[in-house]
């Protein structure tokens, strides 16, 4: 059932993760670690398998094999609702704001999975726009507001590991800066964040380490302070 894996320093330990959508073999052996309190990014082109990796960790892909260890607990065979309750919060690429719910209902929807989550009022303090519009329907928010809501609602659950899939996609630069500030705040509070990003400039402002993903595999690993040395190489591999 749920095995205890040695070396619980690592919040998230992924080994040889393979995943399929139907017959398409998307992830071909992803292996990486995220230590507690770190902010780690998965960088890569479109179609590299970054989003699929995050979905595979949550258990919402078609088929997956390998090892996904969250806080020392093996979850490769677990259902998504069990994975969530190990204390991991998920913010999908399309934000997943429910149109038939109000902003406040969206905010209160994800159940509390761990004690110590942020109170709603506290979250509203970081995202004042959301408080103003809390009675509006979810889909009437702007892209930036939806992203804030998507991040905000998982802060209430007490999850300390956050999976954020392209939080800055399609957002204006000033909003991107706001999100960067939020991520830095979360990091200071001790959250562990796995960030999927195509925009490596943004990634370099918040992350500690980066993994380069290509064709469903990790092909490179860089610390944030080395990333400038590899800029050209990265630009080439991330460029269209």
């Amino acid at each position, binding site marked *: 059932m749920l095995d205890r894996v040695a070396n619980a320093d690592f919040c998230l330990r992924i080994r040889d993760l393979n995943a*399929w959508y139907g*017959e398409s*073999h998307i992830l071909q052996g992803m292996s990486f670690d995220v230590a507690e309190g770190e902010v780690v990014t998965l960088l890569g082109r479109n179609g590299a398998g970054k989003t699929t990796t995050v979905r595979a960790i*949550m*258990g*919402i892909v078609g088929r997956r094999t390998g090892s996904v260890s969250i806080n020392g607990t093996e979850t490769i065979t677990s*259902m*998504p*609702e069990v*994975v*969530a*309750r190990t204390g991991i919060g*998920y913010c*999908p690429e399309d934000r*997943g704001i*429910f*149109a*038939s*719910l109000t902003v406040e*209902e969206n905010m*209160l*929807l*994800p*159940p509390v*999975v761990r004690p110590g989550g942020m109170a709603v009022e506290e979250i509203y303090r970081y995202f004042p726009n959301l408080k103003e519009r809390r009675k509006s329907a979810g889909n009437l928010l702007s892209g930036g507001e939806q992203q804030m809501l998507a991040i905000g609602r*998982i802060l209430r*659950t007490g999850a300390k590991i956050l999976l954020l899939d392209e939080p800055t996609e399609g957002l204006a630069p000033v909003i991107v800066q706001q999100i960067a500030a939020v991520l830095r705040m979360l990091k200071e509070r001790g959250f562990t964040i796995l960030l999927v990003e195509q925009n490596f400039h943004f990634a370099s402002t918040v992350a500690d380490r980066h993994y380069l993903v290509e064709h469903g595999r990790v092909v490179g690993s860089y610390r944030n302070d080395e990333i400038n040395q590899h800029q050209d190489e990265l630009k080439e591999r991330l460029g269209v």
Partner: protein
Amino acid sequence: MDFLDISSQVLFGQLLVGLINGAFYAMLSLGLAIIFGLLVVVNMTHGAQYMMGAFCAWLLLRYAGIGYWGALVIAPIVVGLFGIVLERLFFRHIYKLDHLYGLLLTFGLTLIIEGLFRNEFGTAGQPYDIPAALQGGTNLGFMFLPNYRIWVIFASVVVCFGTWLLIERTKLGAYLRAATENATLVRAFGVNVPRMIMLTYGFGVALAGLAGVMAAPIYQVSPMMGNNIMIVVFAVVVIGGMGSIMGSILTGFGLGLVEGLTKVFYPEASTTVLFVIMIIVLMVRPSGLFGRMSTDRAALNASIASVSGAVNWSKTTKMALSTVAIGAVIIAPAVFYPVFLMKAMCFALFACSLNLLVGYAGLLSFGHAAYFGTGAYIAAHAVKEWGVTPEIGILLGVLATALLGTVFGWLAIRRQGIYFAMVTLALAQLIYFIALQAPFTHGEDGIQSVPRGHLFGLIDLNDTMTLYFVVLAIFLGCLFLIWRTVNSPFGNILKAIRESEPRVVSLGYNVPRHKLLAFILSASLAGLAGSLKAIVFQLAALPDLHWSMSGEVVLMLLLGGVGTLFGPIVGAVVIVAMQSYLAEFGSWVMIIQGGIFVLCIMTFRRGIVGELIVRLRSQDKPAAAAAQQVLHTA
């Protein structure tokens, strides 16, 4: 106090009846909407579960001495639990399939449940007394107001409004609404959505059971009580759209009132007025009064998987098989009863006609009996009353159904997926009700003693063997026509539409026109089958138009193999044979047919011929087959 020559007693009396009916329409369509929203399954079993609620009340009274008030609590729980069992056993395994399968599965389950009850309790209704506390009524002067009726209206408004409150204003309802939109994400937040789905189905079904208990004192408790109301509820759902809870409630009550009013001013139309309204709504506002096309999953394109392609046999194999087949049909009358063979051919043609629509264009028509029956009645009438020769009779039958197919097809095509199926069902029911009342159909008797006549004035069809070969010739001719159509450019476009309609639109094809043509062709062939049947059996009767006939032909198609050339023939032969053998067992035919439906949906979706094709194809090329094996086990 009179109004337009109609006494106020009658007016308000009928309005009350209408409001009562509306109360049941509202409760039932509410349950359907809730279940569909989360499960994306059209719960055709709803009518049977409503019936089970009524029977539960009756059984509780009869065998346990528990009266109405106890039944109001116990029956919904029992029916709800039964629903939960169904969800765990069956529905859970079909969510990953196209949602048309849900419709067919619940249809099969309905046949089983109603067949079992019919077997046990017969078709006659059992009375159930109004509870003592609610008997009697008050005379308001302009009308007499029975207490029980007031209670029903009051209770149903409370139930409907309470459910609405639960869904729109509570946290539990928020989970339900969120899961309806994006179940996967709600699971990823840690909510046990599968369990929620199970409980939601149970709740929706319990609502039906509750409605059944409330209905017991008003309508008689009979195994078929669910059917009569369900098709009307489908029309209600098409009119209102399944997207909105409040919409279902308002549409239900509103349409009940409209029905009541029609009964006052124009009684003959009261059974059909709702279907007429449905037609008007379809023409004017296709997404339904409260529907929003963008969020309504029932409006999405849906299709049943067809086994595409054929087996690559060598030319010699094909020649050999053809010779064997031709030999077989020629000597067949010596081995089997020719009348049985002709019946099989008529139904095989009927199934082939439906296959054209379902298997090649991907449109599930659930009301094809309308064309079969219309063909039968028109041909029968023409041959018997106007004295024309059989081929003219058949021609007239085909022309009439082609016309009907044009009108109904044009209407039905305005909706897609589940709605398309429901619309075809409702339109067929409209024809059934018209036939029930029209003078020339002679109601329950049907048109009997239809003369077989002389084909072209020359060939005497009263000789069974001659008739057999004539029917065979027509059957083979139609088969050839279908084969040519399917393998023509037109047929290829239909197959493309089935696979991906948007892509075909983007290529510049007029998709609605193609769909309509396919519909007309399919309807005409079904009409031909019906006309032929009327002449062979010398009878055209109401069962030819009944929804059970529509369901039977879908079963033949499913069993034989959707989208294959010979599948419908095999399916028809099996079902017709089974009916002949089991005719003496009455309701068991229904139960077994339902069982076959369920079995096919759960484990045997490709049908007999479909499975054969897949297996023969994998023997064709060992390397390709091995590759396929690898892909499937990976």
